[in-house]
């Protein structure tokens, strides 16, 4: 009974945060809502990172390549067939003639993300520590250049246009909640627990017969699916190009995870919402904003400086992130009350 109540809280709090952010957005103007929607897409991406990095303790710089592949898949497949020749003149025949709807495009984005993560995970999941991090960075570089120059599978250097903009508040919130639920189910499963055991003590886990390679590969594939899914959601929000799915997004989403707390699902959600919130507020303030009668108009470039400084300050004061890397739990009184 107490365990199930704990599980409800562990899942409910991050999911409620996502829903609360979506509800809060409705109070604001349409232009501000764009930032909220973007923040919710960031939640989906950071949760995807968490599913692997948080549970395994292995840093990956390559997850944005799965996001990019997901975006490419959903984007290429959902642009109306009549408009593909104009936007993607060199597209392969099969892709040129195939168009799918919103939901199938997201499902296919997740499938492609998973398949690619499995493919690159087969050799890479044998690595640990810094070597694994650098190898995943290599994946990012390769994917970035392939998407940039291989025009048979997408727009190449061009920015996607004419992708149906189906990612509004509802879709962004729903997809972020789906990502949270999948990550939660995984971390509560036997596989998730075993992978966290390898994170805490690799030698002990091996000693009891755990295949670290296999567990990491499962998590990598799952988080690849979530990242691809998030990429699909992202391309249905904004016209994207390869530059928008490269280094900046890699480092800002990793920073979100670290600031929230790398080892908890709550941390992933809190970090994504907090950093996105500050970043968006400063972006708005650079264009002038009125707060309770006060006109705030920050000089150009303030956003980048302040976000960087705040991230450093948070990590100095709370090295384990805003949540301390812990999940949401029942209040003390509730735990005592429900003791057997």
């Amino acid at each position, binding site marked *: 009974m107490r365990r199930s109540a704990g599980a409800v809280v562990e899942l409910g709090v991050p999911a409620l945060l996502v829903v609360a952010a979506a509800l809060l957005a409705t109070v604001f103007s349409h232009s501000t809502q764009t930032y909220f929607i*973007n923040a919710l897409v960031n939640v989906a991406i950071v949760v995807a990172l968490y599913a692997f990095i948080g549970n395994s303790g292995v840093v990956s710089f390559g997850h944005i390549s799965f996001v990019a592949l997901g975006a490419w898949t959903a984007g290429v497949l959902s642009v109306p067939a009549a408009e593909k020749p104009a*936007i993607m003149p060199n597209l392969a025949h099969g892709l040129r003639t195939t168009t799918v709807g919103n939901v199938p495009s997201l499902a296919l984005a997740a499938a492609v993300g998973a398949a690619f993560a499995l493919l690159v995970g087969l050799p890479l999941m044998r690595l640990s520590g810094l070597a694994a991090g650098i190898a995943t960075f290599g994946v990012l570089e390769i994917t970035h250049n392939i998407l940039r120059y291989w025009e048979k599978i997408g727009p190449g250097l061009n920015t996607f246009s004419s992708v149906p903009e189906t990612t509004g508040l509802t879709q962004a919130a729903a997809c972020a909640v789906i990502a949270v639920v999948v990550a939660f189910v995984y971390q509560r499963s036997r596989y998730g627990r075993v992978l966290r055991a390898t994170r805490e003590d690799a030698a002990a886990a091996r000693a009891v017969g755990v295949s670290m390679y296999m567990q990491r590969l499962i998590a990598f594939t799952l988080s690849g699916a979530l990242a691809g899914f998030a990429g699909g959601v992202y391309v249905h929000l904004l016209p994207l190009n390869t530059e928008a799915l490269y280094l900046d997004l890699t480092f800002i989403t990793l920073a979100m995870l670290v600031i929230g707390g790398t080892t908890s699902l709550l941390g992933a959600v809190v970090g994504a919402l907090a950093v996105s919130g500050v970043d968006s507020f400063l972006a708005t303030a650079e264009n002038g904003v009125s707060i309770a009668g006060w006109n705030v108009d920050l000089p150009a470039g303030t956003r980048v400086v302040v976000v960087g400084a705040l991230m450093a300050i948070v990590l100095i004061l709370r090295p384990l992130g805003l949540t301390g890397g812990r999940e949401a739990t029942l209040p003390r009184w509730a735990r005592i009350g429900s003791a057997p």
Partner: protein
Amino acid sequence: MRRGRWLAAIVAVAAIAAAVVATSTYGGTTAKKPIVIGWAFDSSGAMAPFDNPALAAAKIEIAHWNARGGVLGRKLKLNTCDTQGNKPDIAKACAVKLLGQHADVIFTTCDVDLAAPVVQEAINRGKLAVASCIGTDQMGPKRFGSKGRLAFTFGNVAQDEGSAMADYAWKRGWRKAALATDTVIVYFKNVVQAFEARWKQLGGKVVASETYQSLGGNNVQNVVTRLNSVKADVVVTSTAGAFGALSTLISGLRSLGNNTPVINSWAGDGTYWLPKSPKVTNYYFLTYASVFGDDPSRAVNTLAKQIHAGTGGFITGPAAVDGVVTAIRRSHGSTKGIVLAKTMERFRKVPTISGLVSFSKNLHSVFGRRYRVIRIQDNVPKVVGTIVAKKVVKI
């Protein structure tokens, strides 16, 4: 007496009625809704050297129109939003904000890929999307499909610009060209492709064809080495100083003792990127207008001085305002996107401060402009001629 009172009352009522009518008529004129231009621009990123001067000059042009009573009695109002380096989410939020402020026409940044979030938002809402200086044929139906009918640019189409570069190079007696293509944006690539197409039509020879990436790419030095090993009469490129590779390309060649003329498009306009040593020599570029005080047009020189313009692209800002104003007037005051688009598609040699502007149903970018050719020698820029492309080539 009684009749007098009635008469006085009638006169008073008539006077009040006349006053009310007069006031309402007067109020009707002044209360006419302004025409709102929403401009999403990049104040600090790679497009800032192009967006900022175009916007500054456009503000002056808008003030001129308003001083003359506006457009068909309606004032022009300009709302701006900084896309902060054209970050896609900020750019989209800017477009939504400007549309929320009842923008009738949306202006956007000078690169079609970076402009896409703003253009998409505007055309999805049925508004005219205008770029002052996007230089490709993709600002229109080619990139944005059927809704792209609402997208226009007052920049020159790359097929025209590259062709003019080839015509100028040929006129100078150069016959062997080495091509160095910056692949970072479509405009850069298209200019060099257009040069090559026209160059081959003229009978010129291409002795090298190299590619590099600016904006953080680190392979331009390799291209310098390879270009130095070929004997060419001219090196052809299209890249912007603000994108980082131009300075390396020119300095690299000159440091190796290679003084082959380099010809660039409007992207290479300005002196802000010039290295102090070695000084830039034998460097040519084609542009909309000279900002160095020696433009053939006095009006251009006055405006350039007024806004301290850095590149000739500034002239496309007021040209775009003039163009939109002409479209609204020809559409009898309508600001509906599709009405304005249909009118603009019929533009044939419409006079603007940047020269004559023509569009067609398929080509929503300007062709046939008279380019200024500027040479930089020892870091000193000077107009050395003008040229109009003889052909708009197909690429």
